[in-house]
C-alpha cells in the first residue's frame, strides 16, 4: 500500500473518529484486503481489533459512492464479488454483537474462545499470500525483465521427431476456438441447421412459378450460413443441370430458370 494513500487516511490521527479513508473498493482485492488495509494502516492489533470501529469503517467504505473520481464510472462490481463484501459485512456485525455478550463459548481445554479468532486467522493467512504475491510480482520475470534467445537459426534444417501429444495444449486450443465462436460448438455452430440438399429443394420450389433473379432469392435469406448454403445449392443445381443461370450483360442481374421452363 503506498504511503500517500495511508497519509490521506489519517488527516487527523489523534481524532477519535478519523475521517473516512479516501480509498475505493475497486482498489482492493476483496473484503480481507480491505480489512487488512484498515487494520495495518491504523496500526490496530490484528489479534485484538476494535471490532466496532472496524465494522463502522468497513461499512462506510462499502457505502461510499464509487463515482467520486469520475461521474459515470459506475463500479460494475461483479455480483459475486459484491456478495463477498456483503458476507463480510454481516460477519463483522455478528462479531460486533457477540463481543457485547458474555463469552459462553469454550474450547476443548475450557478456555474462552474469542469470537474474533477466526477472522484474525483468516486475515493472517491472507496477508501472507498477499505479501508473497507482491514478491512474486517483483521477481525478475522472463519476457519482462530477462530475455532468452528467441530464434534458433541453427535448428532450421535439422530433421526432428514428430510432435508429441499434449492434452493440456489441445484443450487450451479448443478453449480458444470455443471462446472465439461463442460457446458450445457441437450443438450450435454447425448443427446442420441448413443442408444444401434442403436448400436445393427450396430453390427449385421457388422456380416452379417461373424465373427468379438471384438478388431476389438471396434477399430473404437470413444469415451468412443460409446465404452460403443457398449459393452452394444454386451451384449444385446448375452443375446437375436442373437449372440454368443466365446473365445477359456484365454486372447485370443474374436470372435463374428451372430447366423444365426453358424449352
Amino acid at each position, binding site marked *: 500500500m503506498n504511503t500517500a494513500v495511508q497519509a490521506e487516511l489519517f488527516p487527523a490521527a489523534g481524532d477519535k473518529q478519523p475521517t473516512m479513508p479516501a480509498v475505493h473498493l475497486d482498489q482492493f482485492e476483496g473484503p480481507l484486503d480491505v480489512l487488512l488495509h484498515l487494520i495495518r494502516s491504523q496500526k490496530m492489533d490484528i489479534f485484538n481489533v476494535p471490532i466496532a470501529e472496524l465494522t463502522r469503517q468497513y461499512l462506510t467504505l462499502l457505502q461510499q459512492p464509487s463515482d467520486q473520481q469520475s461521474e459515470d464510472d459506475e463500479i460494475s462490481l461483479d455480483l459475486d464479488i459484491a456478495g463477498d463484501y456483503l458476507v463480510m459485512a454481516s460477519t463483522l456485525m455478528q462479531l460486533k454483537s457477540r463481543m457485547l455478550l458474555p463469552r459462553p463459548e469454550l474450547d476443548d481445554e475450557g478456555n474462552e474462545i474469542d469470537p474474533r479468532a477466526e477472522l484474525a486467522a483468516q486475515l493472517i493467512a491472507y496477508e501472507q499470500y498477499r505479501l508473497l504475491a507482491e514478491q512474486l510480482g517483483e521477481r525478475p520475470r522472463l519476457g519482462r525483465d530477462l*530475455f532468452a534467445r528467441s530464434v534458433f537459426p541453427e535448428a532450421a534444417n*535439422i530433421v*526432428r521427431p514428430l510432435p508429441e*501429444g*499434449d492434452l493440456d495444449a489441445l484443450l487450451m486450443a*479448443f478453449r480458444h476456438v470455443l471462446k*472465439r465462436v461463442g*460457446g458450445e460448438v457441437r450443438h450450435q455452430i*454447425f448443427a446442420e441447421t441448413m443442408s444444401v*440438399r434442403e436448400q436445393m429443394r427450396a430453390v427449385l420450389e421457388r422456380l416452379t412459378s417461373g424465373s427468379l433473379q438471384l438478388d431476389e432469392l438471396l434477399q430473404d435469406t437470413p444469415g451468412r450460413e443460409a446465404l452460403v448454403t443457398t449459393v452452394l445449392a444454386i451451384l449444385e443445381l446448375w452443375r446437375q443441370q436442373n437449372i440454368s443461370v443466365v446473365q445477359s450483360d456484365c454486372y447485370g442481374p443474374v436470372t435463374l430458370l428451372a430447366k423444365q421452363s426453358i424449352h
Partner: protein
Amino acid sequence: MDTLTSRIEAILFASDEPLTVKRLAVILDDETTGSDIHTSLMALEAHYSQRGIHLIQVAGGWQFRTADTHAEYVQRLWQVRPARLSRSALETLAIIAYRQPTTRAEIEALRGVKTSGSIIATLQEREWIKVLGRKDVPGRPHLYGTGRQFLVDFNLNSLDDLPEASQLLDEDEIQQLVSQSTEANNNE
C-alpha cells in the same frame, strides 16, 4: 565491458532478427551515435571470435550464431527435440476430436481461417486423424475423425475421456457468452 557494449550484447542476443546499426541506434538512447555502436560491435565481434558463439553479419545486420565447429553437437540437441505443434494444428486437431466426423469446411468455419493442407498432412502422418469417409453433400468432402493413435498419444482411454466442451469454459465465461448472444439477438 562498457555499458553500451553490454547493452548491445543483450539486445542482439534477444532479437528475433539480425539488427542493423541503424535499428540499434533507434533502440538505444538518442545520444548514441552510429560510430559508438560500430565500436561496440567490433569489440563484441573480436571477443566472440574465439568462443563457441560468434557475432556475425547476416542480411546486412548483426546476429549471434553458434560456431560452425560445434554444428554436430547442436544438431544432436535438436534431433531429439520433437517439433512443436503449432496453435493452428492444435486447434484443428481439437475441432476434429470434438466434432468428428467433420469436414475441412467446418474446421475452417470454426477457426475462421483457411486450414493449410500441411496441417492436415502432419496430423495424418502422426496418425492422430484419419479420413472416415466422405460427406454426402456437393463436392463430397472428406470426413475426418481421430484415430487410435490419438488416444494412445494423448493418454485417453476413450474419446469420452475428453472433458465436455462446456467444462473447458468457466461459468462466468459462459455467462458472458450467453449475455452477449442475447444482446445480439435483442439488437437484431
